[in-house]
């Protein structure tokens, strides 16, 4: 079974050719590899490849198939696009598409919502201010549009990646 995996902007083809104990043979974009892979702690893998020892940490971000992969010096965003993802992409297509919903990457507290539902906002206008760890961050609209829905109240404690405000573009 072939799978597509996206790392940063690159999309690669991954095929598992065989497995023997902890040794995996894989074809990645036509290159054949033999990796010795052991999961040593939850989400942490020890990989031996051509004698080199590497540790990789897989941190699930938001969705099951989205990872932040940490290596010694770097961190990458990886998305596994397998049959399930394709299946879902084919059957569903609506649900608040990205860009129109304001979310924050981190948990925090809603300090101010200077807009109302139905209000028209300019590109760059602040629609919500979030405080976390004594620092306030302002989130702005990316376009000229209207405030469709406000999903939280001032003073609310919010999770990371939680939808806060839905906007509707008036641009085209």
């Amino acid at each position, binding site marked *: 079974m072939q*799978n597509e*995996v*996206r*790392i*940063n902007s*690159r999309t*690669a083809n*991954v095929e*598992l050719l065989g497995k023997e104990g902890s040794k*995996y043979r*894989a074809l*990645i*974009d036509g*290159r054949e*590899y033999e*990796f010795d*892979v052991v*999961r040593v*702690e*939850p*989400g*942490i*893998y020890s*990989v031996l*490849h051509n004698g080199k020892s*590497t540790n*990789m*940490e*897989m*941190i699930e971000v938001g969705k*099951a*198939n989205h*990872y932040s*992969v*940490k*290596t*010694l*010096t*770097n*961190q*990458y965003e*990886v998305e*596994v696009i*397998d049959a*399930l993802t394709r299946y879902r992409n084919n059957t569903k297509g609506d649900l608040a598409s990205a860009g129109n919903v304001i979310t924050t*990457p*981190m*948990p*925090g*507290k809603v300090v101010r919502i200077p807009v109302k539902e139905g209000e028209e906002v300019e590109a760059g206008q602040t629609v919500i201010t979030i*405080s*976390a*760890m*004594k*620092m306030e*961050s302002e989130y702005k609209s990316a376009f000229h549009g209207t405030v469709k829905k406000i999903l939280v109240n001032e003073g609310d*404690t919010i999770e*990371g990646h939680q939808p806060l405000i839905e906007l509707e573009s008036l641009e085209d």
Partner: protein
Amino acid sequence: MIRKILVANRGEIAVRVMRSCREMGIQSVAVFSEADRSAMHVRYADEACFIGPSPSSESYLNIDKIMDAAVKSGADAIHPGYGFLSENAEFARRVAEAGLIFIGPSPDAILAMGDKLTARKIMMDAGVSVVPGTRDLIEDEDKLKETADSIGYPIMIKASAGGGGKGMRLVREESELVSSYRRARSEAGSAFGNDVVYMEKYIESPHHIEFQVMADEHGNTVHLFERECSVQRRHQKVIEETPSPLMTPELRAKMGEQAVAAAQSVNYVGAGTVEFLVDNDHNFYFLEMNTRLQVEHPITERVTGVDLVKTQIMVANGEELPFKQEELTQTGHAIECRIYAEDPKNNFMPSPGLVKHITEPLGLGVRTDGYVYEGYEIPIYYDPMISKLIVWAQTRGEAIERMKRALYEYKISGVKNTIPFLKRIMEAEDFASGNYDTHFIEKNPEVLEIPSDCNQECEDMALFIAYLDYTEKMKKLVSEPTEVEKHASSPWKEFARRKSVLRL
């Protein structure tokens, strides 16, 4: 004799203080807000007392609640840590009034040093060199120009009640003078409720060097050498080291002497820090005195061997300092890195949340002072500092290599953190050579660029492991019914099924 100490703080410093209490056989009492029931300082303490809702203003900054907790727990002393109420003279007074020992200086010393203009005057009288500028507040706009000319541009207008970079205005030329003065006053008024401002010469590219002082009630005051704190980001210290690469024995002696004089001028008792600005020509100027333990105190502990918290407690107990100036030595080199729950790739956005996994660096010459643990959720209400990593080695070069090794070993996942940024600083040429001042980060913008130079092979490996992890997860979920079937035949399921029948 102190037997039980209430630690009016949270996070790493609360745990730090309790460690020394434990070593001294002193009971420790933690206080905690709603967000902190499962925090490490509550787990570490002998006793713990709830003091209110999560926002600091309703718990850690609420003097009444802390005093209640102290009385209820029967503590005979209070250690304020740093931040929160540690430099609040009113709190120190209230503690004393309740018949308890405040582990810190007198309310008067806190007040005197808390007001910058007052401190400046006291220092001038004590013969401590301050940044050239005004001695008194400036009230007459007409005299502004004259005063500025006598100091020489660029100048800095500062709020007397300010601190930590707030309420300051840099004036490079005369044309900006009046408007800057007015804005500084109005800003200070609204920020601190006190619009007194004064004027100082602006020191270009200074070094920020501070001296640790320690004084007892019997008139003994010593310094425990310097800490170089010039690596700062937005006026926040990032890395500290001792000795300072800039220091010479002569300069150290002179600055140390003035640090002691500064402390003595306010009859200081306990641990304090005298901060100086130093230029490349070794001119130095008193900046302010912090009347508490500093975040970066461990590097001093490492090179001197002195446990500063224990010494604070001994002094609070009325004992004499256990060392004289000439008995103190500075051995080897220590560096501290502060690790924050902030995303260095995204403009240092705070990153509270669940700590999924943590591996602390261990081995020779490494100390970690932290408070988070696996499964701990870093709250959104408080400071984003996760821990402090301190290394020691015989030489500065070895200490940098050791810090790199320790940062390599340090793994925290779940929350974004500044470890990659700290690694970049350790690799910077200017840091390695010791040739840096408070403009280090502006001058070395590459430290802000966290590299993403994974070669193809490394990328391929990363995406293969992600694919593998995902596939395993999928298999587990899809095959779960089988798991359940297995369970179902266990006595558990049997029991579950029969439970409703038997009505146990």
